């Protein structure tokens, strides 16, 4: 029993990695631009379809990652210019508008690719697995997911904390009006951040495609999970993404193993509600001064 729990704990790391990868783009869009992007799941889905197309053309996941970043990033740019730039001041309504965008994306993708499922293979060198403990092998691809999550976190940390652009982003996040007075083009920052976040969602889709059959409805559960990660960890904090992802991923894996999937999810949900009852802004969320 103990050994199986340890195995579950280890395989939980890959669930954590998946959550972190999926939530990163959303954390940036939601945390900095303040947009409740309900189309996030669909952006992940488009990223996965991009990976499927790249796979059809002979590429593998490593090639799909930059391609998906660019394709979905451009898509995010179009969405931002077309819809979201007019409604930054009404966050709850960005939710409705982006939901509409999500529906349209789903239908368009379905019209292009048809209703059937696509399967994307993992790259050759990541096939198979290794044994850590117990009888079940730990797949290399899961390890790749964990490495990928860490790399993406590092990338976002670097962009936000070490670049000129990141400095402006943080300034806009702290005080939009004053940043504007100091000559930062806040609308441009919002636009870039939305495109960047969308691109990260694209990467998430490309990376997640091999472990999940690619369909038009695949994105929505990821979006909801990502939101739960953000709500638990705290909006606008990268540590929050890691913490929230870790808590939810591990708790869900272990509880699902002990009980079943649904009870596991229910318990995790209750756990999240209790936590944010104690810290309403999430574990790492800071209370904003009005």
């Amino acid at each position: 029993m103990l050994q199986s729990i340890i195995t579950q704990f280890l395989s939980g790391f890959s669930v954590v990695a998946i959550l972190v990868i999926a939530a990163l783009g959303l954390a940036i869009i939601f945390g900095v631009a303040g947009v409740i992007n309900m189309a996030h799941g669909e952006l992940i889905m488009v990223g996965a379809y991009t990976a499927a197309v790249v796979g059809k053309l002979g590429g593998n996941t490593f090639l799909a990652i930059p391609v998906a970043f660019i394709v979905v990033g451009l898509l995010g740019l179009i969405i931002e210019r077309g819809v979201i730039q007019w409604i930054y001041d009404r966050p709850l309504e960005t939710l409705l508008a982006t939901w509409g965008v999500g529906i349209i994306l789903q239908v368009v993708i379905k019209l292009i690719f048809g209703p059937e499922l696509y399967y994307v293979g993992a790259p050759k060198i990541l096939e198979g697995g290794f044994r850590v403990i117990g009888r079940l092998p730990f797949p290399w691809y899961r390890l790749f997911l964990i490495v990928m999550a860490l790399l993406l976190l590092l990338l976002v940390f670097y962009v936000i904390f070490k670049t000129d652009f990141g400095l402006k982003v943080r300034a806009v996040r702290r005080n939009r009006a004053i940043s504007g007075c100091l000559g930062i083009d806040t609308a441009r920052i919002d636009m870039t951040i939305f495109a960047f976040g969308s691109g990260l969602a694209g990467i998430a889709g490309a990376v997640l495609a091999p472990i999940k059959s690619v369909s038009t409805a695949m994105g929505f559960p990821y979006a909801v999970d990502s939101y739960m990660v953000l709500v638990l960890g705290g909006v606008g904090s990268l540590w929050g993404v890691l913490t929230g992802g870790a808590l939810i991923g591990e708790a869900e894996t272990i509880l699902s193993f002990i009980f079943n999937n649904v009870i596991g999810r229910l318990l995790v949900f209750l756990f999240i509600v209790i936590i944010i009852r104690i810290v309403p802004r999430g574990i790492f969320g800071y209370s904003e001064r009005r």
Partner: protein
Amino acid sequence: MKDAPAAKQGVQPRHRVYRAPTFMPLWALIGGAAVIALIGTYPYYGSNAYVLSLLGKFLCFAIFALSIDLIWGFTGILSLGQAVYFGIGAYFVALSLKINYAMTHPTRYGGNFPDFMEWNGLTELPGFMTPLISTPFAVLCALVVPTLLALLFGVITFKRHIYGVYCAVITLAESLILQDFIIEYQAYTGGFNGITDYSNYATPAFLWVILAVVVVFFVAARALTHSRVGTVLKSIRDNDVRAEFMGYNVANYRIFVFCASAFMAAAAGALYAAWVGIVSFLDAGPVFSIEGVIWTAVGGRGTIIGPFIGAFLVKGAEFFLSGVLASWWQIIVGGLFIFVVLVMRDGIVGSIGNWLRKRRKGATLHQIIEESDQKAHDRQLDWQPGGPPPMDEPVR
């Protein structure tokens, strides 16, 4: 205007006097009665059974949209899990009707309990479901359980100032989990297929029952939003911090309206289950919740009649156009979300109201609110130490 003393002295009155609208103007009363008569007598002049079933369905959807309007349009709480309450209400009633149906219609292997339970390996009705044999008790459960659930949710979140985005996300997850729960525990809920094949009440008499409930909720919602409580609710929607500073217990008002709305949604679900005769996990899912939000937005949030018009228009268009347009219909729905947010912010009813107001007074509601906010702001800027700020404007 002629008799006002200010006008006699040659001074124009500085501000519009706010008059509360009448509770129900005569034209609305007559129009409403006409619509009710038109719908209620359909079984006697129309022969299309499909249209009849749609009418009852749409009325339930309209109640559901009204419940969303109460919390979103009037109080500013966007819940994406309203279908949870609708679904629980519907499942209680459907289960009870199914159990009663099974008592007189044995399953293929001779069991006197619902067939989906037999398929899933149960040999008799589970003990905790026996009280549901009594349909009145089930109806009571269908109404009380969702309301209590909403109370619990409200106490947990609103008391800690969790609202807005957080509330939307949590309710969304809540409804997703309920949906998973229904699919997983198929021995008790019918799972993916839902609960079907029971004797439902799709009779003209029951249509009148639904209509009566619609009217009761309509009048109740109108009375609520036109009372002092309703004014507080609207002030919470427009500026919750200011409402709190004025001494109102914002959390309790939110909890109250959330429970009232859950009750309404549950009643809609109960009627829906009894009318349609099929309940599935989709009726408790997030997609249905958001559909309700879009009906409200299209009809006009913050108006009582808006949700009705929105539900009938959008759902009616879906039933008659989705067959012709196939998946293009979904694109139209998606576009509708964007259109309502970007262009027609106040929905159909709100837009008509704005147009009338513009013709009459030269300002839309938004402009009036913004203007008065600006005045209040200016007054604060003019304030000098040593004297209270001038208060010459009646507080709306």
